């Protein structure tokens, strides 16, 4: 009998790396993974809430990142146009504006001019923003005459000269201001990179949040299963055996959360795609809307699962050691 015991322990140690052991190992993992999923289903409310929180926390930075990507994409298209908009004072007569435009046309630094009447401006704005009804509240059209000037290639390639031209136009009589498109282009540019940075910052914080939330969920799970864990340890369950279903629970929460996040991103994308499309048309740009790709789905599921495992690990390391049969 003594020999039997020795052989048994030896078997466990020796066979650790054999192919048979590998099959057993894989089968056990499959079983544990499946059974922990079944256990999550047994508590739909808890599971649903946790998955929702994870989904929102993953979807938010993803949406921000997509927004930044969209902005950058749009910028790269409209970056080529760089008009100077000359805004006249309110109430300036159309003849005067036309006359000026004609005069500027003869300037060698200017390639073309285009007069935009207040009514045209209004139309454009309505198309732009879908906010036409706000302006409908005004009795008179509040927009001034605008002359859109396309500088010549020569000037465009020399920022200093371009600056001089803008200043000259700005200083003209009856002109309220002359604004180089590049100004707001730059602003838009820095906004895009700000949103880009922001999405990483927000993503980092929310990843931490996910870790904490899942860690806490797993802690509650451990608390609920205390009796079971004690019995398992009493009959010779290793730390690994006790740990495994808990890590899998974390993995499932994260994975399901990631998939739900992909769904959220898709829904939000669908909701904003119509107004966004209109906006893009008004900018004469044809940026393709980011649609939910498999790559994104996979990424969200992967990061979700990763965070889930990590959160479960942290919790298990903290709380499992103290549960011992008394």
């Amino acid at each position, binding site marked *: *009998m*003594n020999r039997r*015991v020795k052989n*048994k*322990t030896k078997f*466990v140690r020796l066979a650790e790396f054999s192919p048979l052991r590998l099959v*057993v*190992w894989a089968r*056990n993992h499959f079983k544990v993974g499946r059974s922990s999923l079944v256990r999550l289903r047994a508590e739909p409310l808890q599971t649903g809430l946790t998955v929702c929180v994870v989904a929102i926390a993953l979807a938010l930075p993803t949406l921000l990142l997509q927004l930044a990507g969209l902005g950058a994409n749009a910028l790269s298209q409209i970056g080529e146009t760089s008009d100077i908009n000359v805004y006249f004072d309110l109430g300036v007569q159309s003849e005067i504006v036309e006359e000026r435009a004609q005069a500027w046309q003869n300037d060698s630094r200017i390639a073309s001019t285009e007069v935009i009447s207040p009514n045209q401006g209004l139309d454009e704005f309505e198309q732009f923003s879908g906010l036409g009804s706000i302006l409908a509240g005004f009795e008179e059209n509040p927009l001034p005459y605008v002359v859109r000037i396309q500088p010549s290639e020569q000037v465009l390639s020399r920022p200093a000269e371009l600056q001089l031209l803008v200043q000259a136009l700005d200083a003209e009589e009856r002109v309220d201001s002359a604004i180089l498109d590049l100004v707001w282009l730059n602003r838009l540019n820095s906004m895009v990179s700000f949103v880009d940075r922001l999405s990483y910052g927000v993503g980092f914080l929310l990843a931490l949040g996910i870790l904490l939330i899942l860690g806490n969920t797993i802690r509650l799970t451990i608390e609920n299963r205390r*009796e*079971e864990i*004690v*019995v*398992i*340890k*009493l*009959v*010779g*369950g*290793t*730390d690994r*055996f006790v740990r495994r279903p808990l890590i899998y629970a974390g993995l499932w929460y994260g994975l399901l959360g990631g998939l739900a996040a992909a769904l959220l991103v898709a829904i939000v994308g669908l909701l904003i795609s119509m107004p966004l499309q209109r906006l893009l048309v008004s900018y004469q740009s044809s940026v393709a809307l980011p649609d939910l790709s498999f790559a994104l789905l996979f990424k969200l599921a992967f990061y979700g699962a990763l965070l889930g495992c990590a959160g479960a690990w942290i919790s298990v390391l903290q709380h499992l050691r103290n549960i*011992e*049969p*008394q």
Partner: protein
Amino acid sequence: MIVFDNVSKRYPGGHDALKQVSFELSRGEMAFLTGHSGAGKSTLLKLIMAMEHSSQGQVLYDGKNLARLGRQGIPYHRRRIGVVFQNHSLLFDRSVFDNVALPLAISGADPSETARRVRAALDKVGLLHRETQNPVALSGGEQQRIGIARAVVHKPDLLLADEPTGNLDPELSAEIMNLFHEFNSVGVTVLVATHDISLVRELGLRQIVLSEGRLASGSASPVAEGPRS
């Protein structure tokens, strides 16, 4: 198989639960551990299970010092022991079958082998027909027997029981003691802590008697003494 060599156990509060206890339990032997409440019976069993560690002296299992097991070694040590503890009973979130199968699941036995052994163990305790039920639906005595099936399903070398007949009627108690005796007759070493002196006398087996943490009698040879307290 089990050697207690001058073992003392002091709990963190400063209470000495065991004082210089020395005895030996040979392979294939069956013995009872008796003594008044608080004498240290459960403590002694916990030392064998490596749930507690001795403050002084050594507990040897198959010649190996349990103090040197380490955290990694403890589960493998426990797998060689079957244990029936009153307060650590069954899990009510799963069937009788799954409860009994737990020790096999832990060591990763394959499903057909598991089913065969679980049914054999349940048959042994006369509850094979209950395998699909939830243990909640069973009486106290039946639950105790399921606990015993779980303790023997993986064919342990040693069977430990802490007051296994605690709240059972005399008839059922005798039945359970007979069950232990049967396991012993097929080679399992058995150590049972109990208050039930009449049952112990009936079986006429070795008695290890503790009193206030000291060994009162039964250090080596079979004796049949009355209670000391």
